[in-house]
């Protein structure tokens, strides 16, 4: 029975190999799903199809992006004259 069983080193190698493939697959899947999510967002970025608008931050569609691309919210400083 023990004759055809793998050695412990073989089992350890098997675990290492599968775990590495699992990590690689997970990272690849993250990239793929991120790309699909981006494509989905891009395709549905008109305000009328469920994508959250800026004024609805407290509803149930919290995890939807704003329809527009991110923008800086600050303005360039304006020089002030005067003073004593």
């Amino acid at each position, binding site marked *: 029975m023990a004759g*055809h*069983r*793998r050695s*412990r080193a*073989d*089992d350890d190698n*098997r*675990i290492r190999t*599968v*775990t590495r493939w*699992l*990590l690689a697959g*997970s990272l690849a*899947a*993250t*990239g*793929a*799903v*991120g*790309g*699909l*999510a*981006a494509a*989905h*967002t891009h395709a549905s970025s008109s305000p009328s199809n*469920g994508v*959250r608008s800026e004024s609805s*931050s*407290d*509803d*149930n*569609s*919290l*995890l*939807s*992006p*704003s329809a527009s*691309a*991110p923008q800086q919210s600050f303005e360039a400083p304006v020089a002030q004259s005067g003073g004593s």
Partner: protein
Amino acid sequence: MSTNALPVWYLMRATGVVSLLLLTLAFALGIATSNRWRPTGSRLYVTTTLHRNAALLAVAFLAVHVVTAVIDVDAGVGLVSVIFPVGPGWLAVGTLGLDLLAALVLTSLVRRHLGYRLWRAIHWAAYGAWPLAIAHGLGMGSDDGTWWLDAVAIACIATMAAVVTWRVLAGPTETHGARA
């Protein structure tokens, strides 16, 4: 630190989906361990170790999912709603699943001090995290109706249905080895 950069938002969605897949795999391997299944010619600890590694990977991706949800201003997820299920709707469901997983991880870390019976009871209760996770993923609606989210959901549900059926049909197994 907060941002409304779209890549962060995509990363949050992607890591959420991948952690659901890994969670499903970890649960399937956990049930396989209970059924004393092992790859041909290998020892049972191969299944057990792969179950643990898949679970650790799921936790790592889940951590990225949570962190990106917190720092993304559009997501509107506060630190309190990460820990307590007080957020709106499906967010609270996800938090509840996260709490169950945290209990699973923490009790596994101190398993030697808990005793096998208590650890096992908590471990089985944590399997409730899976339906909560899938409900959270489908209910949030960010990718609702996309073919790939539907495919992921169907694959996860089919896998869990298969392994739970397998577990039920296998009947009780000896657990005195306490090596799951």
